[in-house]
């Protein structure tokens, strides 16, 4: 892994630690009452705070996960460097697009 990827992976990891803890707390809170779409959307729809929170989460995950995937592909598969990098970038774009779509789905009024 080169230094740039290493730094980005660690930075996004550090950013996601507090986000993950909040997310875990919400998972426990929401599932205890029994998950319902009405409850989820009542909490998130029209909320700029939740949109920013989950938007940042998605952006960080879309950087963090592909870097890890790239390392695993490099060490565990015979893929050539170009194919490995393309796969990692494609996965990052997939996460970003699907993630932002999900944020829009639950946060837009």
């Amino acid at each position: 892994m080169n230094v740039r990827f290493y730094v980005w992976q660690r930075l996004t990891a550090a950013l996601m630690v507090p986000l993950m803890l909040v997310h875990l707390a919400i998972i426990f809170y929401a599932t205890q009452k029994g998950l319902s779409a009405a409850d989820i959307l009542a909490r998130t729809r029209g909320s700029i705070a939740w949109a920013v929170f989950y938007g940042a989460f998605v952006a960080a995950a879309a950087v963090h996960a592909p870097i890890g995937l790239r390392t695993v592909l490099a060490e565990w598969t015979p893929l050539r460097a170009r194919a490995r990098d393309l796969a990692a970038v494609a996965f990052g774009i997939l996460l970003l697009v699907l993630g932002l779509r999900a944020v829009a789905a639950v946060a837009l009024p």
Partner: protein
Amino acid sequence: MIARRLAHRASPLWLAALVHRLSGLALAAFLPLHFLTLGLAIEGEAQLEGFLRWSDRPIVKLSETVLVFLLVIHILGGLRLLVLENFAWLDGQQRLALLAAAVSAVVAFGFLASVF
């Protein structure tokens, strides 16, 4: 010769690195599905509600419990690495890795208890 080359695999810290990698891969595989599920709300609340009711099945709850375990062990394993790389060396890395696994198991059981 081979035994000597594989000797490091008996180390709990090698196992911790493997668990961190495998949990990361599992979470990466889960994320697109998670996003697609939430994206159902674009089509309306009823679509998301329909999926949530489908996910009330025990097998789905058990799968979610495994995911919570993987999420917590990946966070704690990552935190251990961040601390290891950025702060003064802490002795007892093996104990910290074991603690991460234990806390993950407790949180996962807590989740299991809260959903059943």
